[in-house]
């Protein structure tokens, strides 16, 4: 009895899946179509001449890289207080 039921279930599922596949594009047809598409795309790419583009390094601009250091009174005081006797003129 159980075996008969199993067989019934299996035949049902295979029939259902077949029905699902029939109207749409099958797996094999899908890959065939995809293969044809990629070959066409590859041919199109090959026909365009390859022009290498140079990689561009980050250029922050002159405003960002300009000098910000100034020998202000504050900085001079730092040098004076860090120096030994000779800088305490």
């Amino acid at each position, binding site marked *: 009895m159980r075996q008969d039921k199993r067989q019934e279930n299996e035949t049902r599922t295979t029939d259902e899946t077949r029905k699902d596949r029939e109207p749409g594009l099958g797996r094999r047809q899908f890959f065939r179509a995809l293969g044809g598409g990629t070959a066409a795309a590859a041919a199109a790419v090959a026909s365009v001449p390859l022009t290498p583009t140079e990689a561009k390094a980050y250029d922050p601009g002159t405003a*960002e890289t*300009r000098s*910000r*250091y100034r020998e202000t009174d*504050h900085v001079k005081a730092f040098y004076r207080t860090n120096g*030994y006797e000779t800088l305490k003129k």
Partner: protein
Amino acid sequence: MARMKFLCDADRCIECNACVTACKNEHEVPWGINRRRVVTLNDGKPGERSVSMACMHCTDAPCAAVCPVNCFYTTADAVVLHSKDLCIGCGYCFYACPFGAPQYPRVGNFGSRGKMDKCTYCSGGPEVDLSVAEYEKYGSNRLAEGKLPLCAEMCSTKSLLAGDGEMIAQIYKERVIKRGYGSGAWGWKTAYRETIAI
């Protein structure tokens, strides 16, 4: 043109970590990131030395050489800065840096890293000077204010020097001429007698 440099006088550093604290406070550096650290050699032994370490702003910076997105640039003051807008947090610069300067905030679980963070020599980043955006990403821009890095200005024993490379080299030379260096420095023989020499 002045070249900005750091110089730590190891004969004077007492490992107080004031430079580390000053840096973290000035730039509001998040937890888990230290732009500056104090490294101690021969800890607890005679001849112990401490050195305050951060980005040394290399002339030919290895971090910039390995960066896959070229986010590093060197200013006219010879300060190595980077753009956090470009950084992808890959970690290459950390492996390239001989000083372990680049740091990465942990932004999520599973060890994901955020944008790299490092010492900016208190000179901000590519954003407009002293802007809010610059402060949020890189911290304060003391150089644009006519000041020097706070770590050096804060140093209690005047061990950490910052500023024009030629100027601080001159200051250090004068110190060495006056007091000596290493085992020849003033006070060494009082502390360690004559048995230890470096």
